[in-house]
């Protein structure tokens, strides 16, 4: 069922759109935002509790003694035991958990065994690298994939230019299947080793240039996936009645696509973007290793090899909360766009 939006377009939200529902809050006179915020906030809090418990328990399963890692290969038994006492590892498990949770409430994530620095310092110094890379990659995805998918959808509408459709289909299928770390390696080989036009890894004196290759490596697969979806959505939207009406009004093509087609594509695209961004946080781990990018992924690999329990817990907890908050952000954005979602 269509309804007319403020811009005169019929509102349809794609194949996955929920059925139209009356927008009312559960309590008369109560803003629907409050109910929505309470429901979503409760979800985030539950995620936090589960993440705290899971991160504490999982690291206990890692074989090996972190006191040996911290004390070093040359340490004797006495020194190792001394280190074990200093790190609180000799305490019973429930005591360690209570100390851990108590520290969290004080904003203290503990002290890293391997860095001898507060975990919060280690995590939040790395977080901008990972989050910045993921966010910028997402922007690249949106800026490239949406116009690309739209253009291909427009040019191949109703079976036109089948050769373009084939090239687009096969190439996007290929690149969306190639793992990010493989792409990263190829990019380094071509642009850094052969052509020498971009730095091969993190370079503190040349951060902008050093960001290019990791960003490209992380975004290519998502660009292909999003572009394919946008192309399909474009084909559906272009066949809608309101588009025929716009063509009948002799609206210019650019205005027609930007004002009438694009908004109807964005809901699905933004929904997927949130999921993709969360996936990018995970994908950033392998990309960070290829580029020596000092983010959370790089840090957690080191932390696991060193059996640095507090740092592992801190990074996993922050990543889990970041994922939950990003999901919340996406839901809020979607609720802004489509009030029906708040119902």
């Amino acid at each position, binding site marked *: 069922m269509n309804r007319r939006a403020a811009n005169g377009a019929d509102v349809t939200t794609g194949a996955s759109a929920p059925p139209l529902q009356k927008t009312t809050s559960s309590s008369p006179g109560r803003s629907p935002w409050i109910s929505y915020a309470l429901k979503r906030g409760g979800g985030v809090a539950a995620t936090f509790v589960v993440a705290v418990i899971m991160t504490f328990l999982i690291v206990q399963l890692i074989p090996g003694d972190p006191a*040996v890692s911290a004390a070093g290969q040359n340490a004797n038994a006495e*020194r190792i035991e001394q280190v074990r006492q200093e790190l609180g590892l000799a305490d019973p498990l429930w005591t360690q958990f209570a100390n851990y949770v108590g520290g969290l409430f004080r904003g203290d994530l503990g002290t890293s065994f391997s860095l001898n620095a507060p975990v919060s310092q280690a995590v939040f110094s790395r977080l901008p690298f990972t989050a910045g890379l993921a966010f910028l990659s997402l922007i690249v995805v949106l800026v490239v994939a949406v116009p690309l998918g739209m253009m291909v959808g427009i040019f191949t509408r109703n079976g036109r230019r089948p050769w373009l459709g084939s090239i687009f289909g096969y190439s996007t299928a290929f690149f969306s299947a190639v793992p990010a770390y493989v792409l990263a390696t190829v990019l380094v080989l071509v642009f850094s080793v052969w052509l020498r036009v971009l730095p091969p890894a993190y370079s503190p004196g040349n951060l902008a240039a050093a960001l290019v290759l990791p960003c490209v490596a992380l975004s290519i697969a998502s660009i292909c996936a999003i572009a394919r979806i946008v192309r399909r959505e474009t084909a559906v939207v272009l066949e809608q009645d309101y588009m025929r009406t716009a063509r009948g009004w002799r609206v210019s093509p650019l205005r027609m696509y930007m004002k009438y087609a694009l908004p109807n594509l964005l809901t699905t695209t933004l929904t997927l973007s949130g999921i993709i961004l969360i996936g990018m946080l995970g994908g950033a781990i392998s990309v960070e290793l290829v580029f*020596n990018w000092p983010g959370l992924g790089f840090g957690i690999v080191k932390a696991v090899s060193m059996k640095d329990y507090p740092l592992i817990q801190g990074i996993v907890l922050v990543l889990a909360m970041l994922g939950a908050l990003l999901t919340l952000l996406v839901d809020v954005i979607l609720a802004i766009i489509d009030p029906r979602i708040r119902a």
Partner: protein
Amino acid sequence: MRKLSRSSRAVSATGVVLSAALIMTACAPAGDGGGNSSIEGASGSLTAWVYSDPSGFNPALAAGVQTFQFDRLLYDTVLRLDEDGIVGGLASDWTATSASDYSFTIRDDATCSDGTPITATVVADSLKYLSDPDTGSSWSALVFGKSTPTITADDDAATVSITLSQPFASLEAGLTVAQTGIVCPAGLADLEGLQVGSVEGAFSGPYALTESNPGIGYTLTFSDGYSAWPNYSSPLEGNPAETIVYTLGSDESTTANQMLAGQIDFANYADWNTIARFDGQDDFTKTRITAYTTYIVFNQRPGHLFADNPELREAVAQSIDQEGFNTVFSQGNAELLTSIVPGTYDCASTDSSLLTAYDPAAAKKMLDGVSGVKVLGNTANVSFSNGADFVYESLTAAGANVDITKVDNSTYWTTMAAGGDDWDVTFIGDQNAAQAISASLDRSIGLAVEDNGRNFSGSVNPEGEAALDAGLATADREERCELFMTAQKSLFDRHDVVPLVGGSTVTITSAKATARQFGEDVDAATLRLVD
């Protein structure tokens, strides 16, 4: 109230995303571009690479080779290695009247990074801290052996005297180790700050830590007015850099990319595939060292398969082809060992005839049908993992029923440090920081690790132990070498160890940098800029 249109809401939403991205990107630390300096004798910047963060900045508690590199730059030691032996570091001269009594004359031109003069008292206080059992330093034994030292200072005479309760002839070698670096009074007054590197006046070496971003990088800055360079047999080339910027990386291939692109000037590599990328590259200098040695040890604790069974140990030695191991471990690039230390070490045996020859037929006679052999492997890197597989295959080919457990580096050393029941045979990578044979002999002779010793195998070797102790008790080098040779022979005759190969690493410097090799170590404090 005007409602936002769908397109306006979409734009608003997109704006939220963009703003968040820009904020996150802006929060990323800006780079340190380095810079030129007008400090006399030091200028420019060098970039170096380490595999991971240092364990801390208290040299007495250092763990990991990356930490040793930092310690070498930040702290001076009493003595230093030179191309043909030992030279004075903070000591301009020294005497050893016996293996228990030493006296060091401290130079008068050394200062801490805060300008505090480095006197005999400063040196003595740091050594006392190192030797204090409450400090818990793993490196104290490299300097003082099993004894309790008495350390006294005479500032008027500028001398530090060390008297040991038990003789220890390797004290001089121990005092060259970076982990025994002299900590200045400001550092000893704030041990917590010292460990995290926040005490500005703690450093006695040519550099001070001026920027510390754990997980990201570190900057060391040349200490203004530093002049306490050792009197090397040949002078160092070039000039010290004003700043050395350390970056971190977990992947040698990426680091090689950075080096080839000009981003890194000094790095150490262990992967021969990566090292091969620098073949034919005339702009880079490669220095190969034997950073550690590999040899097979057996768990000889009571109740284990190889305890009190030298014939079975001999069979294992006969089943291992040293050259085949070399191929698997390092593509044939490593040094074949004739002892448990490289042949360049003082008093090391270089007689390969003392070792058990490869004899698969003889090995099969003893090992065929032997069951329950537990091989412990370390997956620290590809070489170690491949080496463990080679040992497994060799024993299996000899007819033994073998179980192999391969674990990560941390778990491996946990198991070894505990003594334990989880293994029968393994090959270890032995890093000898002091480059003194005694520090490797006690890995297979003497007290077991679970008894606060260093012997991984738990073997009981009275002849070897007596020879080692006697060697450490004499100041006479010839006598010492004879005794250490006796200890080595005891290991070979008892088949307590099976020497394999030296673990080579290659230090590569760019065209604008140079560093000096002393023995089996490239001294980071000699890293300099050249024209």
